């Protein structure tokens, strides 16, 4: 896993729910190639998909990903190769879904107030540090539990489970 993530900031507010990240009207799609077209389509920046570059970071306020359990919200960000989501706090199911897909979801108090859209950002997962390279703001991030780090370092639960099933460690 790449532990140094550098990219541009896309900034969103508090309580960004899954209908903003991935509106229900596109929920019938099941392929990542389709799902990735509608990232943040219900938010106040519906042009996100056109603007984002692989590796860019999403910065948000509190409770990012609240609302439904739809994994589409994480799949669409993965499809756009979002490098990480850094927020004041995350809703629980979104957090799990993102980790399962190998997207670092990192809690960093104060981040929303200190980052402007377009800033160049760097997240150092190893050092547990977040840096706004544009304005120099640096802050520690909340460490992830070992169990969760293990999933993330395998690139998500799918590669991890594939490794286990193929080694016969999970009996079916």
């Amino acid at each position, binding site marked *: 896993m790449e532990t140094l993530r550098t990219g541009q900031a896309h900034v969103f507010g*508090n*309580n960004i*729910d899954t*209908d*903003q990240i991935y*509106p*229900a*009207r596109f*929920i*019938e799609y*099941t392929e990542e190639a389709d799902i990735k077209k509608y990232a943040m389509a*219900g938010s106040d920046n519906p042009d996100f998909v056109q603007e984002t570059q692989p590796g860019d970071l999403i910065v948000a306020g*509190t*409770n990012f990903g*609240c*609302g*439904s*359990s*739809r*994994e*589409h919200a*994480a*799949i669409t960000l993965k499809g756009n190769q979002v490098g990480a989501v850094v927020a004041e*706090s*995350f*809703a*629980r*199911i979104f957090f*799990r*879904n993102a980790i*399962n*897909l190998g997207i670092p979801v990192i809690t960093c108090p104060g981040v929303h107030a200190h980052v402007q859209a377009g800033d160049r950002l760097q997240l150092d997962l190893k050092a547990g540090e977040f840096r706004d390279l544009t304005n120099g703001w640096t802050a520690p991030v909340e460490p992830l*539990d070992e*169990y*969760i780090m293990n999933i993330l370092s395998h690139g998500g*639960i*799918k590669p991890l*489970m*594939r490794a*286990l*099933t*193929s080694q016969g460690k*999970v009996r*079916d």
Partner: protein
Amino acid sequence: MHAIEKLLAVKAGVDRVHAGQIVNCDVDVAGINDLYYQTVKSFYEMGGKKVKHPDDVQIFFDHYAPCATVIQAEDHKKFRAFAHEQGIANLMDVNQGVCHQVVVDRGLAKPGEIVVITDSHSTMHGALGAFGTGVGATDLATILITGKLWFKVPEVIRINLTGRLQPGVYAKDVILHILGDLKADHGIYKAIEFAGPALTDFTISERLALCNMTTEMGAATSYIQPDDRTRAFLKSKGVTDYPVYTTDADYQYEEDLTYDISQIEPQVAAPADVDNVHDLSNYQGIHVDQAYIGSCTGGRLQDFAIAAKILKGHHIAPDTRLIIVPASGEVTRECIARGYIQDLLDAGATLSPSGCAACIGIHQGLIAADEVCMSTSNRNFPGRMGSLKGQIYLASPAATATAALTGQITDPRDYVEA
């Protein structure tokens, strides 16, 4: 330890657990709803071949039931094939209803069990003493392969309810009031327990509504200590054998809050946040285009009884439509047997098949731009029930039925008998 911790410890096969710890637990009910064919895809992507415990798996056709598009129909078809192939007998087809209500109707939510469904409102099952929690598709696929899933042991916030509700005020008003007070992120990763003398009076239906909406506070799960009402309810479903864990006297709650429910007036969550809660009286007179009675929050027998009482012998307002969606097939049949559906149809209601329907804005009652919908459901985000410019007010079944009657937001206390 808290009762929830004791439950998780047993399911993880360990003596003790503590808040913040990650535990890998056996899952008793693993539910997949029809929005998430992704679950099956993830199952195969992870190298899954045989579902470990097919009898514990439930597949629910609810959000799309019955299908409105070809893509939905294809998803149902693929699910049916998967169920056949894996020997999953519990496929709840389009006649069954919303997953959470079906779980309750079938007596599957019970003390001491872990209920995991690919749906955020799985917190509801705490009302019956289960550990209910929602997950995404890939987490559920992990359960299909291993029979287990990891959980972080939650801290518990206890909400004590005291006092007595005024006539015309209901459990839905209580939970809306609490949400407005604590806000949408107050319970992230936490368990919300309801307790206190007033809770004893609450019916199972009301308790389910309370626990259902803790999801809107971000809660991982919710809990009500099983009591005589719980036991009587489960017995009516033929369920008598289950462990009941109790919380140790020295357990430290993260927060211990008390609400005197006698003071609560009819509430609404106004557009477009669930925690944008105010006294309904502030919104009196706003024209209502659609009144919606349904969903896993407000589509049970008791909700239709309240609505039927208000509307029986009357007719809904001329410029207002009333969509009624009993949460499950069983609720529909009971509502018919008791005459509620007849009363509501006579009053001008439109009956929709059981399922999620317009609660999730997929079909059966979407609203247009600038239309106002008053709903007994649980979310009022922009676009949740149709147009992004639609306006959704969440309220009790009584307030929703009253709005259908008068065509505008109206204090239901003037329309229910004391």
